[in-house]
């Protein structure tokens, strides 16, 4: 038998390494994805002795989804989608900026930094779904998230300070909303803070030295040294945030609702397809926008 070339062997072994993933991809991703699309164009019913009946019904499922069906909160599906997208467009930059802020603070040198770091990364744990759902109380009386912010909401101090700045009412309401949502904001920023901190620490100190010698103020250093150096990571963090926000979206509950409780598999699949398209389109938009700002370099 002819001896195989080193490169060929290597390719073969490399392929063996990726093979389990490829099998998994077909079994757990490609087939379900195709099936979801197929179901969304069919009337699906599960037979009693196993197996499924598919009846082609064109885009009837999609029409039903937008015209007949309502969500658990008795809203129209379209309205839920629009509201979700609005929320995401506001929340994603907020979460990224907030975690950048946290990362910048931990990156500074001050006594007790270790302890602060432990606390700042706690959201990785506190952000788990199960923890959030168990911490939130069902009575309004002691609701944690509500109580965190009720201090802000009740006290007119914060509000009067805001009014004192002479901002328009819409801006004040917007800021108040952010403050009211701060608990959600924090619980979703754990991993991003970690990623951004790692990015900040990978900047070589000599860059800052040069900036200092050249007489740059800390403000200038931030915009001219820090931000360009971690632009890639900000991009990554934004994408990660968007995916994370999608995972927590109430739309996923609706999909479950349609498929398992109302047993309308077709309609649920139609919603899934729209959900995927929505995610991909929004991701595309955000990456397009960020690419204008950030020069991407993804390991070639």
């Amino acid at each position: 038998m002819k001896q195989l070339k080193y490169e060929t062997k290597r390719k073969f072994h490399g392929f063996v390494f990726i093979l389990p993933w490829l099998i998994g991809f077909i079994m757990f991703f490609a087939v379900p994805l195709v099936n979801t699309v197929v179901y969304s164009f069919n009337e699906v019913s599960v037979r009693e002795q196993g197996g499924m009946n598919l009846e082609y019904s064109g885009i009837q499922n999609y029409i039903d989804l937008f015209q007949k069906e309502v969500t658990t909160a008795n809203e129209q599906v379209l309205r839920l989608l629009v509201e979700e997208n609005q929320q995401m467009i506001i929340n994603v930059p907020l979460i990224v900026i907030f975690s950048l802020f946290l990362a910048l603070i931990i990156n500074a040198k001050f006594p007790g930094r270790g302890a602060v770091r432990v606390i700042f990364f706690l959201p990785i744990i506190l952000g788990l779904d199960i923890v959030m759902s168990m911490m939130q109380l069902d009575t309004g009386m002691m609701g944690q998230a509500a109580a965190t912010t009720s201090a802000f909401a009740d006290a007119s101090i914060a509000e009067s300070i805001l009014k004192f700045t002479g901002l328009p009412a819409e801006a004040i309401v917007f800021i108040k909303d952010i403050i009211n949502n701060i608990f959600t904001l924090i619980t979703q920023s754990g991993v991003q803070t970690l990623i951004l901190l790692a990015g900040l620490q990978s900047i070589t100190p000599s860059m800052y030295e040069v900036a200092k010698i050249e007489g740059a103020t800390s403000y200038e250093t931030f915009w001219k040294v820090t931000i360009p150096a971690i632009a890639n990571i900000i991009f990554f963090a934004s994408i990660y945030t968007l995916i994370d926000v999608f995972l927590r979206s109430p739309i996923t509950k609706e999909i479950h609702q349609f498929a398992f409780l109302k047993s309308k598999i077709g309609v649920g699949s139609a919603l899934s397809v729209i959900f995927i398209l929505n995610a991909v389109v929004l991701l595309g938009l955000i990456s397009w926008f960020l690419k204008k700002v950030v020069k991407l370099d993804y390991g070639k």
Partner: protein
Amino acid sequence: MANNRELDKMQVNNVYIPEKFKKAKIPWEGYRIKKEAMGLVQKVFFISLVVGLCFIILYPLLKLFPTVFGEMSDLGNPDVVWIPKEFSTVSFRAAFKIAMGGSIGSLVISVLYALSITAIQIFMSAMAGYSIARINFRGRNIIFALVVLTILVPPQALLISQYLHFKQFDVLGLITMFTGGTIDLINKPYVLYLMAFLGFGLKQGLFIFIFRQFFITMPNEFEEAAVIDGCGFYRTYFKIMLPNAMPPVMTVGVLSFVWNYGDVYYTNYFHPDGPYLSVILQRMFDPTRREAVNDALFKHFDIFLTNQMTFDATKQAALFIFLIPLLIIYFLAQRKLVENLERSGIVG
């Protein structure tokens, strides 16, 4: 003119200083005071910011403190804000009894489950990441694009067909051919391991991505030296590449453990009867089960005035117990985590 002459005199012999200058403060002293004051103000501002942020993050946990450590009869007492009147472990005992059946079995099983899934995820993701990063086989870029695609598509969107697919599981008609029917994979313990093993566990696309980003930055010399010294492909990987990949292993390990331990999504759909603490807790403390939990409180702990708040106190004590393994791992790992993440490739 006169002014000029006066200044000249000052500069030349440094002795003559006009009266009006004598009274004035020395300019640099004012500058120093101003600078120090500004520094102090900045420091105070910074510290209050840090303390404030820490407080906001810890607030939910701090607020739970009097609820879970206090007597049940003190719940809702407006006098109790931060520190319980009398310390008591009754909520913990109740949570332990009601949610976990009085043994730490489910806790241990959950930790073991999360650990083994973590090990599988690290092993498989590292292999896949290595292959995509360093082997130049045909279609490698397509595979990488597919990995990114699996990160981007939310798994919940595939839930329905994945569930139905598992309910009547079959690989290309092979299983029907041999056994004459499909297998029901739902509610089998091994299905979660199988998914992790084939690279589709919880957020595994992200882990593969992290490993790929790390391996691509590793210098070629490692592999070349190993090959020249007579290592085969597998030996090179397991003896040289994997031990050098500790940073991403750490990062992926911690994230995978935290997520798998707290996961209620995969476990709930694919193995609902499993002994996972997260699923048990979620089911046990569903709002609809309030009466049942309160009845148990009354029966085992002689608590007469059961209401929403006793239910909540039990629930949160259970949450504390649930969090213990997570917090231990977290405190052990967090110091290393940042150092490692820096070198683990996400940063690129």
